[in-house]
């Protein structure tokens, strides 16, 4: 029976190394005395994935056309089975994601987790924050009701007030000198294609750096990262299984965590 389960897993591992890679990604050493605050990043990622999935499904029925957009939103909300739920998840999930993003940023700041060698990850995080705000701004227009329209008029004109570049940014967002039919398609394309692509790429980079650099020690801990504790309370990786190489067992996928000597 065990063989039956392991056979496809081993088959996949031997040809791709994906299982070992996944283990390397999931079963990392983390400093002890980490707590729930360290889960805010994962929570934000979860919120983003919810947005990505619900957004893609909403796109099945949404029509980015000035004559049809509002009616298609009404259709999703009132007529389609569970449409109200998916739209609600996307609409409220957007706020949840922004809130979690700020909490995550506050955690990183207050724990000093942005310091060497993690400055680059902080910068990527700032970009992710800006892109998430961009998602919020562009997504707000899509229902194409009065609130959406005039909020976007105001939003674009705020952008237009940036010195020097402002008028050009505004023309770019509007797709012309006036808000009109182009604006909705431009916002839809930015919301659906441009920013999500960038978000996925930067989240990948963000996670890569998290895995490469490890989780920072909480400011109150007396245990340095990477050290086995010597106070008799067991290993620093309490509860986590020792990653065991699969396949040919060359161990190339299971690089041991480097111990920093002091």
């Amino acid at each position, binding site marked *: 029976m065990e063989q039956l389960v392991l056979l496809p897993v081993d088959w996949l591992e031997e040809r791709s190394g994906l299982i070992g890679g996944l283990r390397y990604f999931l079963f990392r050493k983390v400093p002890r005395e980490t707590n729930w605050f360290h889960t805010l990043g994962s929570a934000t990622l979860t919120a983003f994935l919810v947005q990505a999935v619900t957004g893609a499904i909403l796109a099945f029925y949404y029509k980015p056309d*000035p*004559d049809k957009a509002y009616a298609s939103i009404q259709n999703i909300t009132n007529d389609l089975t569970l449409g109200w739920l998916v739209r609600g998840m996307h609409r409220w999930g957007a706020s949840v994601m922004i809130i979690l993003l700020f909490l995550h940023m506050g955690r990183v700041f207050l724990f000093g987790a942005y310091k060497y060698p993690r400055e680059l990850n902080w910068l990527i995080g700032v970009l992710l924050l800006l892109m998430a705000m961009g998602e919020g701004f562009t997504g707000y227009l899509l229902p194409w009701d009065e609130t959406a329209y*005039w909020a976007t*008029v*105001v939003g*674009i*004109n*705020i952008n*237009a*007030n940036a*010195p*020097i570049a*402002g*008028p*050009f*940014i*505004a*023309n*770019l967002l509007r*797709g*012309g*000198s*006036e*808000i*009109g*039919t182009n*604006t909705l398609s431009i916002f839809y394309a930015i919301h659906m294609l441009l920013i999500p692509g960038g978000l996925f790429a930067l989240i990948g980079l963000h996670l890569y750096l998290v895995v490469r650099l490890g989780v920072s020690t909480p400011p109150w801990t007396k245990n340095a990262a990477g050290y086995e504790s010597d106070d008799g309370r067991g290993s620093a990786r309490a509860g986590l299984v020792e990653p065991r190489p699969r396949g040919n067992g060359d161990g190339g996928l299971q690089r041991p965590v480097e111990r920093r000597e002091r």
Partner: protein
Amino acid sequence: MADELDRPEEQGEPPSSGSEAHLPSPTIWPFAFAAGIALVLVGLIINWIVAAIGAAIAVVFGFLWIREATREVRGAAPPPPAETRLAEVEEEGAEGEIQRYSRTRFLEGATLGAGALIGGIVTLPVAGFAILPAFVDQGHDDIDLGPLANFPEGQWQVVTFYSTGADVSTGRRTAFIRNNGMLDGVPSMTIISNRCAHLGCPVQPQGPTTTQGEKSVDAKSGEVDVVPAQPSGFGCPCHGGAYDTEGNRTAGPPVRALDRYHYDIVDGNLVLKEPYSVAEVDGTGAQATIHAYALADPGQHVDGPEQIFYPYIPK
């Protein structure tokens, strides 16, 4: 199995000619042959002449290819190996290795360079298409608002019209229009845009609103609604900007007066031309002095020291 493979090396025997791989000598004929075949297929759809040319190419280069491939069997001398010169250089030792290395470097650079060139060729027009609309004039259509008789002297009208010509709801705009009477033999009109000079919300006439006397005119630009009003000024619902009846800011966050439209009288019809921005208006009605500037987005200063922030306003 492993022993068999190892044996020749151990015994120092040269590999027997029977087990040697017969690699065909490098040749470009298959490329030309394939092009001929492709031409035949295209010709079958387009034109039989093309197919015939393709067939001729395929036959000629197929023959050359077969000749090339069977050269060894026919006992002809193999072509000199292409690597001869390189091999000679290699024998010279350290200097030769440097030569080899530079060739690798050249290929690296060539690959990266070609990639960058192709990327640039593909990206430039796309980026231009994405960005250029921000710099290029979109133009303003002239808007026919119907007969001048609908605008009696000294009377404000709230006029709603299609600005884009097409019947799309997003092109619906509103202007406040007052006929100031004749000035030098030409009707003088005050035509104020309802776009707030703060952040672009629609300003509303202050005072009693009514739809009494509303007229719907079937003008050249589409349906035009004309509603008489007696505004004591204009106010913005979004952030509380307030203006007097000349469009001058009286309170709130706007940075300048309300925009206005140029106008013309064509065949007795009132026609709206380009909109323009106004810093302020001195005086009232036909005698007013309008400090006019090129159309700017809401919130942008057109006069005063702050105007240096917006030196290039795209038309």
